[in-house]
């Protein structure tokens, strides 16, 4: 049984068709990559999957349940969480608080517990903090929990976004260009981190990525979008030699193997 099934997804902005009849299946314990030239509709697909946009047509099933019409917080609770291409952290909150916000949907909340500082809530908060610290350790941010997120370096901010997304205990993690702006050795660290996440923290990962070394290095399956349509799908090796993919990239004067983010 696939973790996520998307059928016939279409999204229009005025006259522009951002996605046309896109199908996508993500299996359990998989790292899937979504690639394609700029403007291919990759981030739009993420925005629809997380409920920020509403699709004009199509079905989304996650763990055999329909997600059509769900609100973003319902989707997060159902187990899909994401990072953003242009980092969107809570700048004037501490690193730890950023991760704790990610846990919002996992902390049972009642107003009376908050107002009377119930021991139940205190215990939940203690657990949440411990969990958050563990996640910060996982992404290599231990020791920075007390500083404001906006004071972190670019690479650290990217990693904090991953930790924050993991905090919501997603089954499917969506990463929008996680290696953007990283040097090769940082990208290497990221790849091993992502490999370790599958099976331990998340069931599957779907990433948008321009860095082909990362895509080819860790993906089990690659889906290629161009002008809002799916033009190819398969293992990295299959996609690498697909004529339409090469054309989509070469048509814009980019070498598929060396395209960068």
């Amino acid at each position: 049984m696939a973790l996520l099934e998307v059928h016939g997804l279409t999204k229009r902005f005025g006259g522009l068709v951002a996605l046309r009849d896109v199908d996508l299946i993500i299996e359990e314990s998989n790292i899937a990559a979504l690639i394609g030239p700029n403007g291919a509709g990759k981030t739009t697909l993420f925005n629809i999957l997380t409920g920020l946009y509403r699709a004009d047509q199509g079905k989304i099933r996650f763990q055999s349940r329909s997600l059509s019409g769900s609100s973003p917080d319902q989707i997060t609770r159902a187990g899909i969480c994401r990072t953003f291409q242009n980092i969107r952290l809570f700048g004037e909150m501490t690193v730890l608080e950023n991760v704790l916000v990610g846990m919002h949907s996992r902390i049972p909340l009642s107003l009376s517990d908050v107002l009377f500082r119930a021991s139940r809530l205190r215990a939940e908060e203690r657990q949440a903090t411990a969990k958050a610290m563990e996640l910060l350790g996982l992404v290599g941010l231990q020791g920075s929990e007390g500083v404001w997120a906006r004071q972190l370096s670019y690479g650290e901010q990217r990693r904090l976004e991953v930790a924050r997304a993991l905090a919501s205990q997603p089954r499917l993690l969506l990463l929008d260009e996680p290696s953007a702006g990283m040097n090769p050795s940082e990208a290497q660290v990221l790849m091993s981190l992502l490999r370790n996440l599958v099976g331990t923290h998340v069931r599957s990962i779907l990433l948008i990525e321009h860095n082909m070394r990362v895509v080819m290095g860790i993906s089990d399956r690659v889906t290629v979008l161009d002008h809002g349509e799916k033009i190819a799908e398969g293992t990295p090796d299959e996609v690498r030699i697909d004529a339409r993919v090469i054309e989509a990239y070469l048509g814009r004067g980019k070498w598929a193997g060396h395209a960068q983010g």
Partner: protein
Amino acid sequence: MKNWFFNAGLAGYIGLTSLLVYSFPRSVSAFLLFEASLLLIYYAPLSRAAKLSFTAAVLIVLMPLLGTLDGYYLEVAIQIGIFVALALGLNIVVGFVGLLNLGFVAFYAIGAYLWAIFGSHQANAFLPGGYFPLGQAWFFVFLLLGIAAGALTGILLGLPVLRLRGDYLAIVTLGFAEVVRALVNNLDKPINLTNGPKGITPIQRPPLFFQPLVEFLGFKPDAAALYPLYFYFLVLILLLAIILVTRRLENSPVGRAWKAIREDEIAAVAMGVPVVWMKLLAFAVGASFAAAVGVLFAAKQVFINPESFTFMESIGVLAMVILGGMGSIPGAILGATVVTILNLQLLKGLSLWLNGLRQSGIILSLPLLGSFDLSQIPAQFEPAKYERMVFGLIIILMMIFRPQGFLPPRQGGSTKLTTGGDTGEK
């Protein structure tokens, strides 16, 4: 021992300034210095217990004592307390969640009119039976009703408008407050609900339920002397409750969700924060604080009319929050104190001083400029009437030079950084 040094220094400062206040009645500067002791306590590197005992000494012992000797100080302290409470309420909406509410005074008005109407003869105008004014004890019931009414109107206003962009939200809340004021002003017909521009008086004050105890202790105070003290402690208790509730909300998932919305609403949504609910909650909490203070205000003033609930009040409270630092509880307290003293005392003092100059008949002769008869200072020029200029200047200067305010939220101050052990509430 460093601690000993600080403790003694602080105690000395407090003692000295109280002496100053005592020996210079109605001196603005003496009172300001005295008030500043609270700031010193806040900043002093002392233990929590020491800070608490110093604060208690200042607020529970010294302030009432000085206030009994000179009722003027008590009046100022009560006014400051009222504005601190309002600023704390607005701080939740503007400071924590980042929603600019320009109509905050509407909720204050709703609380005030709620008690004014039923705690006076006014309700007889539209309800049969002549049950009004309600007995004094009902004041406490209406304090709770005020909280509920504030929360309810906050939600009713919030439901349709919270989806709007920030700047539109600001204008809509401003429009809402103007509508409320217009209604209060005009609902003396067809049914006389609010008595219109004439206002409502007399409004019941809370009962002196402790009077037998005071008399038993051998004092024979009259109500006129007791009520200022009574209101002072009522305001203090209300403030304490408000601060407690605010802190608990701030240091909970709710507070984190609020700040996340302020920092990046889209990211907050993506992290599973139910944004609309959280905004509604902030609107409701802020509004309920304001309405509770309104109930108290009506009882203290005995008389209210629509003049007390103008747009300027909303902006004044906003200036307080901005001056202190948006999103900071100590900031809101500082801002409210400074602005209220500025308004109540400094400007009035300046007006009196100018008046004195006018009557002195002194003629200034300045080289090159010729002589200037001080009695010629136009009578219309009264600094006390220039509140708007003060609010305006504060707001512009703060936005340009120090948008985070004077006591911005401390980094990591609201979250415990250790994983081990329960450190309890700070």
